[in-house]
Every structure is written in C-alpha cells, then in structure tokens.
C-alpha cells in the first residue's frame, strides 16, 4: 500500500477510525439544535437542512471550534502542553448553551478515555485537565497521536460533524437515506472551503451564533426529545 492522502498507511487507517460513525463517543445522540428547527418548521426538507449546515460552515461556531482544534494540534507539535488546558478552557467558555457544552464535554470524555486505552503515551497528555476535555481538543490529540496531518484532521473533523448532523436530519425530518447521501455530497465543496479557511485563519473568523444559540437554548424546552442537543 502506498501513501493515501500523503499519510503512512497506519495514519490513514487512524483517520478512518477517528471519523467513522462507529467511533464510540455517542455523536449520534446529538442534533445541535436541528431537532428544535424541525419541530418549529424551520427545517422541513433537504434544501432547508442544507442551508442550515452550509451557514454553520460559513459563519458558525463550528469553524472557530475547528480553529481551536488546529491551535491544540500546533501546541502538541511544538511541545507546548500547557496550551492544551488553556484552549480547553477557552472552548468550554465559548459554549454558550448548556446542551452544547455538555455535548462537547461528554464526547470529549468518551474520546479521551478511549485514547488512554489505545495509546500508551496518551495518559500523560490527558491527565492534567481540571475539567472535562472538549471533543475538538480530544480530536486534535487523537489526530496528533495517530500521526494524521493537521490539514487532513481538520477536513476529517468537519466531515464527521456533517455526517452526524445529516444522519440526525434524515431521522428527524425525515428524509430518505439516498437524500442524506446526496446532501453529504452537496456539502463537500462547503466543507473544503471551511477547512481552507480554518487552515489559513490568522486569529479570528467571522461569526454569528444567534440562530444556533436560540435553537439550542430552546431545545432544552422541547416537550419530546429524541436527541440530547
């Protein structure tokens, strides 16, 4: 086997493992506000779901979170381990709703526990946190340990996010499985643009979180819920 994506084969398979929906972090139980939007008629079909996900990739908190993933990966590469905790705190404080914060912490906890079992060098990186690791930070650590290139890791993170929310949308709206796969293909150029932006960002990124914040906050009040966010 040669070097797919420029990665050594072991790293390539680490990437597939990390972005797989089989990764046991419970991603399938979160909709990030989409359940609210479906119940209130703001997302009703493939087009409105695609619009929502596209806007998140263009001006949402996801890109900022992915930029933190990049900062953590760069800190690991530079041996600046104290930066991990700083960025982890920053992400916790950036989570403006309780459900989104709990989601990030729960998924981060599951991932970092798993890493501790998979990599002998993981526990020394992961021990010092005073609060739960956020998922994006855990993902950066996983990518570093798996020797996955930063650029590939960022694209993989965005893809696994999109894949999870398309699955949530397919269940909630509902859409056919084929439509879900079509949507995932439609999103590819937007995912690529978001990955480029995150790789090139100097410091800050355009950001508007009002719609997401209100949808996520309102999710706490839904009478019946399939999802935890």
């Amino acid at each position, binding site marked *: 086997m040669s070097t797919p994506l420029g990665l050594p084969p072991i790293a390539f398979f680490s990437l597939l493992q990390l972005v797989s929906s089989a990764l046991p972090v419970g991603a399938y139980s979160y909709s990030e506000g989409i359940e609210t939007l479906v119940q209130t008629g703001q997302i009703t079909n493939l087009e409105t779901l695609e619009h929502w996900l596209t*806007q998140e990739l263009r001006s949402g908190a996801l890109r900022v979170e992915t930029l933190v993933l990049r900062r953590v990966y760069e800190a690991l590469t530079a041996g600046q381990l104290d930066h991990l905790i700083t960025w982890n705190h920053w992400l916790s404080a950036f989570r403006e709703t309780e459900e989104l914060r709990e989601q990030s912490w729960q998924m981060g906890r599951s991932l970092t526990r798993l890493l501790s079992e998979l990599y002998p060098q993981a526990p020394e990186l992961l021990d010092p946190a005073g609060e739960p690791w956020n998922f994006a930070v855990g993902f950066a650590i996983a990518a570093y340990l798996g020797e996955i290139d930063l650029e590939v890791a960022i694209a993989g993170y965005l893809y696994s996010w999109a894949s999870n929310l398309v699955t949530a949308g397919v269940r909630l709206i509902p859409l056919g499985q084929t439509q879900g796969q079509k949507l995932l293909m439609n999103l590819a150029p937007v995912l690529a643009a978001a990955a480029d932006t995150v790789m090139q960002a100097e410091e800050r990124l355009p950001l508007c979180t009002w719609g997401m914040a209100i949808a996520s906050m309102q999710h706490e009040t839904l009478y019946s819920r399939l999802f935890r966010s």
Partner: protein
Amino acid sequence: MLDASPQPSLQPPLETFPENAAPTDRTWHGHLDLEFSHRPGETILSRSLVKAPLKVQRPFYPEGKVVCHSIMLHTAGGVVGGDRLSSHIQLQPQAQALLTTAAATKIYGDKGIPASQTIHIQVGAGASIEWLPQETIVFDGALYHQSLKVELAEGARWLGWDILRLGRSARGERFSKGEWRSHTEIWQQGRLIWVDPQWLQGGDDMLESGHGLAGCPVIGSLAFVGEEVSEEFIVSIRNLLDIDSVSVSSPAQIAVSRLMSGFLCRYRGHSTSECRQKMIQVWQRVRQVYGERSLCLPRVWQR
C-alpha cells in the same frame, strides 16, 4: 453634564485629563477611568478621570446609598471611523454600582476605517455591577470593534447587557456593508467563564439566514455571571418571557441557557424597546433572586 455646585457628599471632584481639549485628526481618543468604593452603608464614586468626548455625570442614589448609579455620556454626538474610546471601571470590594449611558451610541459609517471601544471592568470581592448601556446603532457602512473584559473576584457578580441595532432600520436602512466585531470575556477568579467573539459582516447571508439573524436588525445579549444558577431559575425566566414552549407558528426570538457560572439570554428582533423591555424583566428577576432588591429604572431611560 457635570454639575459644578458643591455637593454634601464625600465625592472627590471630577478630574479631567489635561490633553483633552481637542480631537486630533478629527478623531477622538476618549477615556473614562472610574472607581467605585464601598463605605459603611454606601458606595461612592471614588475616582473619576475623564477624557473627552467621554464623561460621567455626578452619581445619584435613587434607591438609597448602597447602590451608586452613574450615567456615562459621549459628548460628541456620535462615533466616527478612527475614534478610539476606552474605559476602565473598577469596583473595590463590596461596592455596588449601576452604570448606563445617557443616550444611544451612534456609530457613523462614512469613513471606511474602524472605530473602537475597549472596556475593562474589574469587580472586587463581594462587589456587584449592573452594566446597562443604552443601545448602539451601527449605521450602514460603519466598521465598529468593541471589546469588553470583565474580571470578577471571589463572590463578585456581573449583570450586563448589550443591545445593538444594525443600520437605521426605522428609515429602511439595511446593514449592507461594514462590520460589527464584539469580543467579550468574563473571568471569575482567573477562570474564563464566557467568551463571545462575534463578527457580523454587512451584506452577508448571516444577516438574513435563520441560522444567523433571520433578517432582524436588532440583537441583544444579557449575561449574569458570578454564581451558579439553578435549573428552576432558568425555568422561571422562561415563564417570565413566555418562552417555555415553542410552536411552529412562532419560533422563539429570545432564549436563555446556563453558563458555567450564571446564564446567558440572547434576543433577535425588530425593536430595541422590545429587547430592552424583555431584558428589564430578566434583570428584575435577577435582582429579586440574587440581590433581594426590587427594580429601579434609571430615569435617563424614560426620556
């Protein structure tokens, strides 16, 4: 404006920086440096250094001496590109202050360079601040960068809001170009509790999309930080605002959720007065529960 008549209080005279006579290059570099201190049974404005066009009115006490009310003002009528305003507000331990502004802050949009406002607030142990400025109106084409850093000591509390109108929408003006950047950080005993790095771009899809502002020209945020709030408290806020359930016919435009220590309320809509009314309700509830104090609306809002 400042009243030069003698006052029967212990307030020191209001000082003015000497170099404030005129703006340079027709832009302003205004500064405000205020300190509030606790004395037995009262809070006083113990330091007040101002540099035009920023000023502060002599404090007043509409609800007794414990809470010092102060009104900040911008005397130049509006902010233009290149203006730099900065404020440093310090509350000594146990002090209690309410700050607001005399009028809406207008950010004009004709220069193509950013105006900035930087605010640093330090709240000492057991002190509390209510930061309730009137709305900011960002005219079409304006570039405005605001940053707010709040540092809370042990037992200190923050209640603050920020109300923004994008474009003079009452005249049908849209925010078709320009930008509003706002970076807020609230720290409690060295731990970052909430960071909010918004960056809205004029004419972008984010203003029209339901994912962003859904075409709403008015947005607001209210945060209470310093103490963990209960789920029951959040439910009571939702009941107050009648947002405990959502429906297809009226998706919510205001919502609330807990922060790590406190809570956040977000609003989007079409009316600054509606936004302020709703936020006053939330503020009143916070006062009832955490201040054991009833509402006292600054009279300057009632004009």
